[in-house]
Structures are given as structure tokens and as C-alpha cells.
């Protein structure tokens, strides 16, 4: 039996959906999403920007009110069409992905259970762990979100395949980010933390980058860390996973040389973020690096179409906390936590900012 208890084999590093019909349906949506993002979004942006200019409004003024952008964009017929298509393809993707893997849910739970105590790495779960209410949202519209669907790991894995339009079928995005991870100046890397690791794609690639280091992946969601651990154990990659809070980490002071964080912060309430930064600072040793790839935040100029898209994404793709992050002075918060903040190397995803924050 192949990974995740399925018998249709693998698609890259992914388990195939349970039936060919599911795979075909989801491939259609993957292609549909690709057109929405690579062809329809630029056309929508051009139409919306033309409407703003026709109204005598500047495109490069960050003070331009979002409501004004929305009002002018709404005049272009392509805009509600794009929103409808985006929302519908996302709903269809989750509906079919959950139904497909849900058809073998019991087998998958058995598969997860078989690896819970398997090595070479460890899975650490506190049975009394309480998931905070803020984390229990159906983020990206995923049924049960990260936290509430016991087979959410595999559902998320296939969902993100569609999200990345097939561009991450070999974990290549996470491999790129691991390769771009900036080590401490002294080159000493004995312990690395993947903060908000979800299904552990980055965690595994960090082990490949730093094979001698002890690697931990931490996430609030049990379905994610169980799947991450089972996947790593099946691949015989010695990484450890723990269900815990980023704002209250069960690690000793100064344990880590690197804390790596890929797109966790826009999924946290802004009120929580200072506590997370304080914890990252605490668990890093002096000279340690906090490596962050994340949504843009306040200090960066965004074209009106991107502001429109982020707002759409927040309200209609269940990203309840991203506006708070995008409008926050995230680099200022890092500095206030004690970090020396600098630009990190950019990835191929030009939407993401890259930060290296050093604990002095």
C-alpha cells in the first residue's frame, strides 16, 4: 500500500486522489486556477487601474482608501467575474478533495496511527493541549481548517497542490526556501525550528539542507503534525514534530540556531504576533537567525489591484487575520522584540517578502 493508505500510487511526492475522476476534476480546477491567476488577474488589475485613472485617482498613493479602490474596480465587469471564479474554484477544490480522501478516511487514520510512534523522528503531542479559538477557522475554506478534520493533513496536501498549480509536486518550493535560509554568521547550525510547519514540507527540506542538525517542526494543528510525522517517518527522514503554540513554545532558552517561518504570520491575529516574536527571540541563541518568508506588510508599497486581491482573499477565502498583518509594521515589531532586521534573499514567489532577523 502506498503513502497515506491509498492504492493509486503517487503523483510526485503526493498521494493520488482515490479515483481517476477525482484526479481529473481537480486537474481541471488546477488549470482553471492557473488561468485565473496568470491571465485573468492581470486583466482585472489593468481594468481596475484604468477605472481609477479615469476617475483621476493615483495608482501609487498608499493613502488611497480601500473602499475607493473597491468602488472603482466594481465598475469593471471582469471584477465580480474574477471573484466568482476564484471563490467557486476554491469551494469545488475543497469539496472534491475532502470527498475523495474522505472515502478512505478510516484507512488513512489507520495509516497515521501506524506511524504515530514510529521513528526515526518523534511526534510529540500533549493530550491535554487546547487549540485556541483563534486557530479554529476554516482557513482558505478548507473543511475543518487546519485543526478540526482528522484527515486534514492529506486534504491540505492535495489542496495546496492545486493552490500551487502543480508547481510544488516535488516540494520544490520548500526546497528553494530551505536553500535560501540564511545560517548564523558563525556557520554553527545544530538545531533548527520550522515554526508553523503544517505538513512538514519545509521541515524535511531543512533536514536536507542541514543534515547534521536536530530539526523540529511545530504547529498548532494535530492533523497537520500527525501527517507531517507519518510522511517523514515513511521517508525515513529524522525530523521531529510537536503540536504546540508559537506564542508558548516548549523549548529551552537559546536552543535554536535558526527559526524558519514560512507564511505563518498572516494567519495569526495581530494581537498574538508580539508574543510569538518574543518566543522566537527567546528560543534563538545569540547570533541565531529568524528566517521569514511572508506576505507583504505595511512598509511595502502595493498596487491597488494587490490591495484589492488581499482584501478579497481575507474576506472571501477565509484569511481573517491577513489584513491585520498586511497593514502592520511587522519589521517594527521584530525590532521591538529585540531583533536586528535585514532583508533576506527573495524567492521566485515575488509576492513574498524575505526577512532575516538576527538575535544580537
Amino acid at each position, binding site marked *: 500500500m502506498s503513502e497515506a493508505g491509498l492504492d493509486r500510487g503517487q503523483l510526485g511526492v503526493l498521494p493520488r486522489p482515490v479515483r481517476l475522476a477525482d484526479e481529473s476534476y481537480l*486537474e*481541471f480546477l488546477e488549470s482553471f486556477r492557473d488561468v485565473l491567476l496568470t491571465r485573468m488577474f492581470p486583466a482585472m488589475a489593468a481594468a481596475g487601474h484604468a477605472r481609477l485613472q479615469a476617475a483621476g485617482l493615483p495608482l501609487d498613493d498608499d493613502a488611497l482608501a480601500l473602499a475607493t479602490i473597491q468602488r472603482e474596480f466594481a465598475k469593471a465587469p471582469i471584477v465580480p467575474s474574477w471573484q466568482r471564479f476564484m471563490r467557486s474554484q476554491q469551494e469545488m477544490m475543497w469539496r472534491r478533495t475532502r470527498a475523495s480522501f474522505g472515502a478512505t478516511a478510516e484507512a488513512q487514520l489507520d495509516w497515521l496511527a501506524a506511524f504515530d510512534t514510529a521513528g526515526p523522528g518523534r511526534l510529540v503531542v500533549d493530550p491535554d493541549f487546547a487549540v485556541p479559538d483563534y486557530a479554529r*477557522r476554516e482557513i482558505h475554506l478548507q473543511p475543518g481548517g487546519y485543526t478540526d478534520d482528522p484527515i486534514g493533513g492529506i486534504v491540505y496536501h492535495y489542496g495546496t497542490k492545486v493552490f500551487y498549480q502543480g508547481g510544488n509536486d516535488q516540494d520544490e518550493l520548500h526546497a528553494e526556501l530551505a536553500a535560501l535560509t540564511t545560517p548564523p554568521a558563525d556557520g554553527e547550525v545544530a538545531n533548527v525550528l520550522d515554526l508553523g510547519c503544517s505538513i512538514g514540507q519545509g521541515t524535511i527540506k531543512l533536514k536536507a539542507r542541514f543534515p547534521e542538525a536536530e530539526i523540529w517542526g511545530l504547529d498548532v494543528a494535530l492533523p497537520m503534525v500527525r501527517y507531517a510525522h507519518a510522511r517523514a517517518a515513511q521517508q525515513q527522514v529524522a525530523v521531529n514534530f510537536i503540536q504546540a503554540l508559537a506564542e508558548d513554545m516548549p523549548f529551552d532558552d537559546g536552543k535554536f540556531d535558526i527559526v524558519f517561518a514560512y507564511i505563518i504570520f498572516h494567519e495569526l491575529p495581530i494581537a498574538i504576533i508580539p508574543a510569538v516574536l518574543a518566543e522566537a527571540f527567546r528560543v534563538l541563541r545569540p547570533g541565531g537567525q529568524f528566517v521569514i518568508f511572508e506576505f507583504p506588510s505595511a512598509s511595502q508599497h502595493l498596487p491597488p489591484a494587490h490591495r484589492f486581491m488581499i482584501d478579497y482573499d481575507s*474576506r472571501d477565502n477565509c484569511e481573517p487575520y491577513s489584513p491585520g498583518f498586511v497593514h502592520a509594521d511587522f519589521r517594527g515589531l521584530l525590532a521591538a522584540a529585540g531583533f536586528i532586521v535585514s532583508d533576506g534573499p527573495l524567492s521566485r514567489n515575488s509576492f513574498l517578502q524575505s526577512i532575516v532577523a538576527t538575535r544580537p
Partner: protein
Amino acid sequence: MHGEARQSVRMKPGPHPQNSPNPASIGIEIDGPGRAYFDTVVTDNIIDMVMELAAEVWTVRDRQYVMENVLASQGIDAATLIEAHRPTAEEMAARRILREAFVARLLAGFLRRADVAEDKS
């Protein structure tokens, strides 16, 4: 455009159902009324229907492609055999169940937003 001011839906409070493979409380976003973007919700519903149709058309085309290749590899000329096929009553009943499920999926958009046509605030 009238999708604004909707907050993310909270899942049911209480312990999360880690041990249930099909918890009833999940899927609020994809099974609820969703969003509407046009002045008349019927436009949203029609687009949902067209997208479902398009996905189904592709799924069938893809399967047909795979099937004909599989059969050809076994020396079977599927196209000729399909045209000559005469279904039994049992087969027709089974196909009817599948067809009705397909129609229900196509019309789901109209059913799920039956009461929000006037919600244009």
C-alpha cells in the same frame, strides 16, 4: 458586488473532533450560502453551474481518453463496441442514479442561496 462585511464563520465550540473521520461540524464555508458577487444572485448560480459542468465535461473526456487507451492496449476497439451496446434495465437504473447526482450538483448553487437573492447590501 456585495460580498463585503462578512466575517469568517466560527466552527462549533468545544473540543475538536480529532477521532471522528467525518465530523459533522466541518465544511461550513463550502456548504453554507457562500458568497454572491453580482447584482442578481442568479448570475452567481449560473456561473457555479457552468463551472461544475465544465469540470464534469473535462473529467469525462479525461476518463474516455484513459479508457480507450487501456482498452486499445488489450486489443479492444471501444468506439465500435460502445455504439453497439444495449443496456439492461439494471444498468439503466444505475446510470440514472449517477445522472441525478450530477444534476443535483449542477443545481446546488441555486439551492444553497435560495434565500439571499435580496441580500444586496
